[in-house]
């Protein structure tokens, strides 16, 4: 039994009484919690977890396996924060609790060390991530992947490893940080001064989405600065018990962007956007950085949020058809398109494209961006939009949750895929690389015939001339 008394310093970082007291245990969060829905047990609910954190923080309860298990079972999707009328900041509590659990060593020192190494040394370092991604790319391109999958080699080690390997995203042929120039100028006059954070996963695994984002922004009259010295946003580390390292990255990013003149910092990755919007809070009171962080965070916009607010001019040159939607989007030589002063619909749709939208937790719950992407999508010509049942229910991706808790994540994914199947949509739109990877995996695992793309990719396809 690990005694609290041995870790008095650690307990200090747990939320203090005023924050904990804000939860008045009404239970309205229970309905939105994916883990409570599975177990129907109070300890797997936000209310139960807050009570446990409160007891540990007050020294009434000792840290235990049960406590650690429930904190890690939580997806940290923060649906409960959206549901909470009292404004309890649950996500922050759970993340702090995870720091304590990791420090004390629940979950095994080795596991924590591996997780920390992977996040600190691989994800956070762009070159290392690119190196590993290139290895993965080779693995995928050389036919080794096909071979290993066909003989089921990984099954020998564990069934989960065999499944998790399939979760590994398809690596892009070219990484986007090499393709995107530090300063990109719009086609036409400069209407918006923007900056761009290219993310880690977006850069290596979803590089096309970054190219699509840049292209569409250029069409809208955005000058885009993409500082080469930007780093990973730190979100995966912050959410997984390594806040120190996350804040180091935050400071690096703030310094990298602060040198430039821009009004909006565009992010196309919900997790990164959410975390960067949180810098202001996380660095509050830190000398030299508090002010800069506030300025930085206030400029961060999800790309759909930016579109909905600014309603930039775009001409849609083609209405998407079944054929073009399955064609792989590649960065083409841009063609000049004249800009209008508002959304213009110059094509009458011949065939409606059936789409639906899945809320990324870090977009809806963490950033409260929910209506904006829907409004943008619905305003596109030739779109038949169907609302997804339980659109705001977590898909199970949840950062690295689908890797570290494969079975629990799969249960959530199955539910998501059934809902997607019921919409009869051919395209699922979502604004986060994690969700995209997870739902793509779900299309194979549960045999659902849909394409999973970022909304920006849909827009790119509609404006680019064939």
């Amino acid at each position: 039994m690990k005694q609290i008394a041995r870790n008095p310093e650690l307990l200090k970082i747990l939320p203090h009484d005023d924050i904990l007291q804000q939860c008045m245990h009404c239970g309205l969060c229970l309905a939105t919690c994916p883990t409570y829905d599975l177990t129907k047990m109070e300890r797997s609910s936000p209310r139960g977890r807050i009570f446990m954190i409160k007891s540990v923080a007050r020294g009434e309860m000792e840290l235990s396996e049960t406590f650690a298990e429930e904190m890690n079972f939580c997806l940290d999707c923060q649906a409960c924060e959206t549901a909470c009328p009292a404004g309890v900041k649950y996500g922050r509590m759970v993340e702090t609790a995870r720091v304590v659990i990791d420090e004390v060593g629940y979950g095994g020192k080795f596991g924590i060390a591996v997780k920390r190494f992977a996040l600190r040394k691989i994800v956070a370092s762009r070159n290392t991530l690119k190196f590993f991604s290139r290895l993965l790319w080779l693995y995928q391109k050389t036919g080794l992947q096909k071979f290993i999958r066909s003989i089921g080699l990984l099954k020998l080690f564990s069934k989960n490893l065999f499944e998790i390997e399939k979760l590994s995203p398809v690596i892009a042929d070219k990484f986007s940080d090499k393709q995107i120039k530090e300063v990109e100028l719009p086609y036409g006059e400069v209407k918006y001064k923007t900056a761009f954070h290219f993310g880690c996963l977006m850069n290596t695994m979803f590089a096309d989405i970054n190219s699509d984002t840049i292209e569409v922004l250029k069409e809208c009259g955005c000058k885009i600065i993409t500082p080469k010295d930007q780093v990973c946003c730190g979100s995966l580390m912050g959410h997984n018990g390594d806040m120190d390292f996350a804040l180091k990255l935050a400071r690096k990013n703030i310094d990298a962007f602060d040198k430039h003149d821009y009004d909006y910092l565009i992010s196309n990755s919900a997790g990164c956007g959410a975390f960067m919007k949180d810098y202001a809070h996380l660095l509050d009171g830190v000398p030299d950085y508090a002010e800069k962080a506030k300025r930085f965070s206030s400029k961060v916009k999800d790309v759909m949020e930016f579109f909905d607010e600014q309603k930039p001019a775009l001409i849609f040159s083609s209405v998407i058809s079944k054929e073009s939607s399955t064609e792989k989007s590649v960065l083409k030589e841009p063609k000049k398109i004249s800009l209008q002063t508002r959304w213009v619909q110059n094509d009458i749709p011949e065939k409606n494209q059936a789409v639906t939208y899945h809320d990324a937790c870090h977009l809806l719950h963490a950033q409260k961006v929910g209506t904006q992407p829907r409004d943008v999508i619905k305003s596109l010509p030739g779109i038949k939009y169907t609302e997804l049942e339980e659109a705001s229910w977590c898909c199970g991706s949840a950062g690295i949750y689908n890797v570290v808790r494969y079975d629990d994540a799969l249960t959530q994914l199955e539910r998501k895929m059934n809902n997607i199947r019921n919409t009869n949509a051919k395209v699922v739109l979502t604004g986060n690389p994690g969700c995209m990877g997870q739902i793509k995996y779900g299309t194979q695992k549960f045999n659902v015939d849909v394409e999973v793309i970022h909304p920006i990719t849909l827009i790119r396809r509609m404006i680019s001339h064939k």
Partner: protein
Amino acid sequence: MTDSAKQKLKSIVGSSNYFDSYEDRMVYSYDGTPTLHQMPEAVVFPTDEQQISDIIKLANEDKFAVVPRGAGTGLSGGSVPVENSIVIVMTKWNKILEVDDKNLTAWVQPGVITGALQKEVEKLGLFYPPDPGSLNVCTIGGNVANNAGGLRGLKYGVTKNYVLGVEMILPNGDLLKTGGKNMKDVAGYNLRDFIVGSEGTLGVITKVLLKLIPKPSQTITLLAYFDKLTDSAQSVSDIIAAHITPCMMEFLDNTTINCIEDYAKIGLPRNSEAILLLEVDGRGSAVAEDAETMKNILKKNNASFIKVATTEEESNKLKTARRTAFSALARKKPTTILEDATVPRSELPVMIEKVTEAARVFDVMIGNFGHAGDGNLHPTCLTDERDKKEIEKAHRAFDFIFNEAIKLGGTITGEHGTGLSKKHFLEKLAGIPGIEMMKKIKASIDENNILNPGKIFTISPKCEGSLPINREQIKDFA
């Protein structure tokens, strides 16, 4: 509770349904009621009727208390454990067993979530009206045990109006089946209605037969702002007097408006002293006519702004925001003590003034909102349970409010139940003969006083052990 009793309990439900770690007991030490906590000795999730019966028989032998629990959203402490008790959690009993569209009934397990049932039957063009604020979380079993109300109570009534039959395990372990699909049934005592609202003191509900009605085809939602509190109350009286029965007439005062707006950000008027949220439903042209009459009455009573919700989405947004009122008030202060005083609706304007007076005289912050149409107010004291002086002032304010409600011919609780938090006022309301009858019934059914003891009233001289309440230390309002 002895270790051997715990072992027996474990063998009844199986080790995967038995929990007694500190963590598991702690997370069942509360429900939705502020300031009440007590750890149970163990928590069990029985999987069939026989297990519940065996647990209850064991409780009689080994003398421990049994507290049934649904989602734990109650507001009177009904599912807060007592000393030497175990908690029976029914949340996994969540199947809709049958929807009979010939008889318009539904058999459900007690753990079915109220909102989920509504969604399911509405797909078939049917309607289950009771809609407590926590409808997306709370369970039918808990609704029946507390005779839960909701926003639509004015026109459609409360849970008891929709319960046709109940099955439950009695305090001696027997299975009671009462009621059925008959719309008329006068055979013997009306046990069914007696069970509704018994707050888990008479048995553990295992199955419920509910009445459904056809879903109204038309709904119009109105929102009206007022600069004066009394104008809003007068509007309510005038609408009732005009023989219109809206399905909903919700009242919110300025404090509540601001807290909800902080949370929901739907553009409520922060400066208005009160708003009314009204809804009429039904079929045909009568709905629009009623809405028009209501609009005129609101205008006549100086409503500063009247809005008609144009889409279902907009109307749902307003209603959802209203349902969060209680929790949203926690934005101001960490502890929100919500009460449930109800008066005949003609007395509503007086009662609203009395609540304002209580806040002034006892120097406490009170947000007031509620179901104006049926006289059911939810004055909510915004305080901090760590500040003992504040809490005492709050209790004094509520003593005053309850006394005034009783004087006006009202009641101490309209829909939350007596539980622990209001049992001290029950005698004043029910009178000695009333409370004696309740106690005799309880004692004859539950000889050893094992089922949710200490709730509603205290049975003396049998000692229930210490209860999770500190009210005893507070002197009654003179």
